[in-house]
């Protein structure tokens, strides 16, 4: 479904991604783990076009999307949950969700999707007229995921959904991610620092270090890999 071939991305003169290649098949949950500054978030930003890559090819369902503006990429069916949630603090929960459906015109179906999201996260329905900034961290993360889902993505890019949340909330969010993946057949590309949980959730995983992908395997195999265990699982 998504394929990156030798993607290189720079911030000014600093190279953040060094010839990244990876592949995600339809219906998979794939995770990308690695330390701080390895280039995980940059990989997502390159896919969504917010930080366009300098060279390399990104294919989405066979079509090259590198160099396309972010709004065109979203309209093709790729939706990103940015790192640190980044909800709109002064808009209400409903307005936040409506911003997620910015490119859509099909009102009745937007309503159906809203109902679906309120079923996934009943707390959001309760707080729908509350300003986004007044939600707790976990609720904000739920809102950020829901907002991305409102675009009806076929590929959901999740950037560190566990950031700064209590373990119980994190668990709940990962369960929902699994649910979204199995119920709607939404492909999920998950960037995480919490390698343990990410590998438990995902089917396959990539390990990143200093802008390069150094390992790729099935998630359960990475779980038992000595190097991964030492470096990222702290065992």
């Amino acid at each position, binding site marked *: 479904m998504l394929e990156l071939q030798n993607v290189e991305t720079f911030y000014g003169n600093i190279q953040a991604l060094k010839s990244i290649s990876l592949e995600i098949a339809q219906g998979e949950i794939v995770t990308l783990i690695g330390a701080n500054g390895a280039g995980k978030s940059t990989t997502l930003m390159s896919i969504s076009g917010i930080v366009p890559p300098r060279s390399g090819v990104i294919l989405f369902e066979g079509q090259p999307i590198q160099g396309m503006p*972010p*709004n065109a990429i979203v309209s093709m069916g790729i939706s990103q949950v940015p790192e640190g949630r*980044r909800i709109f603090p*002064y808009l209400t929960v409903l307005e936040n969700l409506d911003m997620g459906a*910015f490119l859509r015109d099909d009102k009745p179906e937007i309503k159906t999707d809203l109902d679906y999201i309120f079923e996934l996260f009943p707390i959001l329905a309760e707080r729908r007229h509350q300003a986004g900034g007044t939600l707790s961290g976990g609720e904000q993360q739920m809102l950020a995921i829901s*907002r991305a889902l409102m675009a009806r993505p076929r590929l959901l890019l999740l950037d560190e959904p566990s950031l700064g949340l209590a373990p119980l909330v994190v668990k709940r969010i990962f369960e929902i991610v699994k649910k979204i993946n199995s119920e709607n057949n939404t492909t999920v590309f998950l960037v995480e620092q919490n390698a343990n949980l990410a590998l438990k959730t995902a089917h396959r995983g990539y390990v990143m270090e200093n802008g390069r992908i150094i390992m790729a395997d099935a998630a359960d195999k990475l779980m038992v890999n000595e190097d991964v265990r030492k470096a990222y699982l702290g065992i």
Partner: protein
Amino acid sequence: MITLQEIKKSFLVSLWFMFLTFPIMVIKVNTIEQTIEWRWWWMAAVGLGAFVLSFFWRIAIARKEAGKKKAEVSGEEKIALIPRLMSNPRFYIPGLVATVALVVIFPFVFSMYQTNILITALIYVVVGLGLNIVVGLAGLLDLGYVAFYAVGAYSYALLNYHFGVTFWMALPIGALLAFLFGIMLGFPVLRLRGDYLAIVTLGFGEIIRLVLENWNAFSFGPSGIANIPKPGLFGLKLSLQQSSIFIYFVMIGLALMTIFVVRRLQDSRIGRAWIALREDEVACQAMGIDKTRTKLSAFAMGATWAGMGGVVFAAKTTFINPTSFTIWESVIILCVVVLGGMGSILGVIIGALVLILLPEYLRAFSEYRMLVFGALLVMMMVFRPGGIVSGVRRIYKFEGLQNKVDS
């Protein structure tokens, strides 16, 4: 609440002021007789004045802090007086009726002078609401807004001079030209943010003014354009007073239209996209909001209202030259928006009325007018930092869904 601490602090302030003003207030050199006069009682006056002012300032601040703390303790959200009155139909409906009645009879009851300054204030209402889109909603600090105002005014003046275009034709043309200028300026500028955007727009405003001042063949330079006709009413001959009254009602109509359109825009998806863009650009891009186009639309929309305001301005004064479009004008319009309350329509209206009418009525203070005006601005920003009416956003609801979730 009078504590020794506060008296002591105020005393220190007065000492400091006496020291600061010593050279100019106390020493007076008579260069002809070559004597020095020591005016010690001036120093006493400064000291006493500073003491009293500082003391009252301290008490006011202390009361404000106490009020804030009380609100925090009781936990209830304090809604400003005006929106609260607005939401109560018992005050709202008679208030509305009284306002409408006052607006209708105003020019027939009060003098032409009063009508004229109210027209000016109304122009600022329209222009302020336009800038409110750019600054209040989209969060783009535009210091060269007056340029679009100038585009509107000059497009009427020049089109009328060369082609005899009437006011009613010029109004949409001026708006359109300002819109186009907004896009033209917006393209190169909108990749900048915050301070940089402010500086570049400031520069653009000055460029427009300098072009108008120096391109004699095009704009008649500093001598300006005179004899711009006032708006006509089906070819009727209007006396000076009648035409003032007519412009007044034209302006009322334009202001109402502006309020309606801005309100609709605010509640639309593009309006919310502006607010979202102000809050978080990266998140907006992740949602598929086209950053450039959304910013550009806010910029151009704002410019459109400035253009219309400019056309009316030219028609009202019947004479324009570049001195009407200095940076000072941009600052005043920005003050209208910030002081009134960013993002609040009612706030901008009240801000415009206060800011334009106040200097007029402060004429009694003659040369101290601007000093008093400045002091009032400082006081307002200290005691009401969110503006006179801080923006209370309307809650947006999807119909139909409501029942489903509630049940």
